[in-house]
């Protein structure tokens, strides 16, 4: 069952690479957030189920609902076009995605595994999602797309943590969640100001500071 989730996560990565419409991208990231929240619930919960469930539900609510809602608002408030015209085209982006996927599986197959029960696929998926986030941040022009890329990357890191059932104390996990939330919040505000003072949110045109 977890395998199916991982496959779906890979597919969200490709969908994200292949689309430039902001609204669609936000929805994809929201879906990814929801899938992420489900992963720990489908694993073996052992005796910590109450805590894990609470955290999973919280993460699901923040990554799957609150942040997407907030980003949609930021998008509507910025007068910019709601579609990105990236430096690397969408079809080419997907080809890059295929290469990244291959690389991720290759790396994951070479890592030394301490415990054979650890899901190898999770490592590959996590690397892949991180790379997708990275690539989107690099290749897209609009500030909002870059925030989405950052979120995707963060999701990828989170998958790694979940997959290894890294026993991170709930306080830290809460802190991580809070930090991501505030980061996206602040980025959204900055995007709003950028669109207000420049009439666009194209980051490649933010180039007055050099040298």
């Amino acid at each position, binding site marked *: 069952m977890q395998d199916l989730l991982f496959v779906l996560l890979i597919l969200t990565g490709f969908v994200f690479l292949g689309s430039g419409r902001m609204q669609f991208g936000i929805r994809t990231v929201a879906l990814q957030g929801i899938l992420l929240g489900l992963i720990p619930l489908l694993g073996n919960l052992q005796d910590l189920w109450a805590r894990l469930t609470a955290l999973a539900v919280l993460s699901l609510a923040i990554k799957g609902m609150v942040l997407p809602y907030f980003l949609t608002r930021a998008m509507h408030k910025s007068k910019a076009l709601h579609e990105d015209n990236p430096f690397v085209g969408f079809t080419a982006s997907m080809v890059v995605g295929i290469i990244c996927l291959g690389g991720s599986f290759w790396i994951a197959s070479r*890592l*030394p595994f*301490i*415990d054979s029960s650890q899901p190898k696929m999770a490592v590959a998926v996590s690397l892949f999602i*991180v790379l997708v986030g*990275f690539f989107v*941040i690099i290749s897209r022009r609009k*500030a909002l797309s*870059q*925030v989405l890329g*950052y979120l995707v*990357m*963060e999701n990828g*890191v989170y998958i*790694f*943590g979940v997959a*290894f059932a*890294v*026993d*991170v*104390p709930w*306080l*830290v996990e809460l*802190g*991580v969640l*809070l*930090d991501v939330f*505030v*980061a996206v919040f*602040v*980025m959204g505000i*900055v995007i709003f*100001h*950028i669109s207000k*003072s*420049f009439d666009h949110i194209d*980051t490649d045109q*933010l*180039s*007055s*500071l050099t*040298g």
Partner: protein
Amino acid sequence: MLFNTLSLSALVLVPLIAGAAALMIRPDRLRRGLLISAAVLHFLLTITASGASPVLGGWLALDSLGHLFLGIVSLLFLVAIVYGVGYLAREKQTKEPGRVDAGSGPLLVNSRESWLTGCLLFYLSAMTLVCVSNHLGLLWVAIEATTLASAPMIFFHRRPQSLEATWKYLLICSIGIALALFGNFLLAVSTSIITSGESPLLLDQLLLQAVHFHPQWLKAAFVFLLVGYGTKMGLAPLHTWLPDAHSEAPSFVSALLSGALLNCAFLGILRAQQILNASGLAAFGQELLMGFGLLSMGLAAIFILQQPDFKRMLAYSSVEHMGILALGVGLGGTAVFGAMFHAVNHSLTKGMLFLVAGNILSVMRTKSTAEVRGLSHLMPVSAALWMAGFLAITGSPPFGTFLSEFIILKAAIEQSHYALAVIYLLILSVIFVAMASIVVRMVQGVPLRAREPAAHGESWLMIASPLVLCVLILILGVYMPDIFEDLLRDAATVVGGSA
């Protein structure tokens, strides 16, 4: 006893609560009073904090390394805030907000002062948490929090350029920090051989059991932590946000960014190196640190040459000094002691330089080095401090920086890294010449006619803070108190150095 138990929590909570209060206080005087009293209280707590007992089940604990960095943060914050309050008062009075500090450009309304004050205090709280956290996960949360608290401060003058700087700062640092989180997870994986079930990222336990960790996973974890926190620390080639943020923030905020924030990120890397040391892989981390250190120094030197903006010049100088710190820790042995000493010197010096740069900006209203001439006529005290700061930051003899840079050089030669020592000296001299050609021209000569200096001269508030810092660096250069030397020695031992 009660005081001992409470002091660590108080260190974090005092600025946090004061920050929340500052957001709500309307009257300016009251808010500024609160800011200064919180800074003073924090400083007093920091001085008396040695030997404070751990709280939260060992999550918060103060070792000598943390204490050293906490001391830097607290002192610099206090001094910068005293300057900052004067600056904010001037900013309020002038009819051209944003002009005092921001140089030429369109007139814009500053953000609300209460926001800036609140963010400053939250920022102090987050940096304190970085210094006192004994848990790597908590450390991560705190470092990310410093980014988020400082971003609105960079955007204080709502100019397009500051917006650009804020955006780069937020995005690049967040990405870096996300990589560091990956590093934390990798570290947790490397420990899973001896999984005891209890929160695996507690520093004390990590150090005790590090010998049993899986070496490959540990190395991967270190790389990610180094790159992640290195982004925040301003190590080349991930430093690109740094000059923008430092040049666009209000000057006293730049001082805090450069003197305190970069050190906090460095602390994150030091913690990772501590674990490597304990697990017997010290050489792996040290080589990487040396490489990144030299690269940062070299790159900074290139950008300081012919730098047209004096605040950016200072920012690149920060990149250089972060490189020196990394190099010092990478060399190991006595160089670690030098690096610790250098961290203190650099923070004080760079803080002072940014404050003086703020003075120059507010009078000359430009950041361009070409348009500033004859400072010694226009603002004699600031000009003298600017010269002194330049000599200090380039490591000239009477100042503490000379000693610390010399200790690192000596260690490099003792360990027969001759090529490295030569490159090190070469870069330092290039930077000396490059900065001298900029600074001396600014101080000497006749003021340009076209540049009408602002009406107000130098007030004591603008002078006092940098002067205090300047005296401190001078004292450190000629006399080191025993208690301070012990602290440095202990801190160096923690990171695997020998004094």
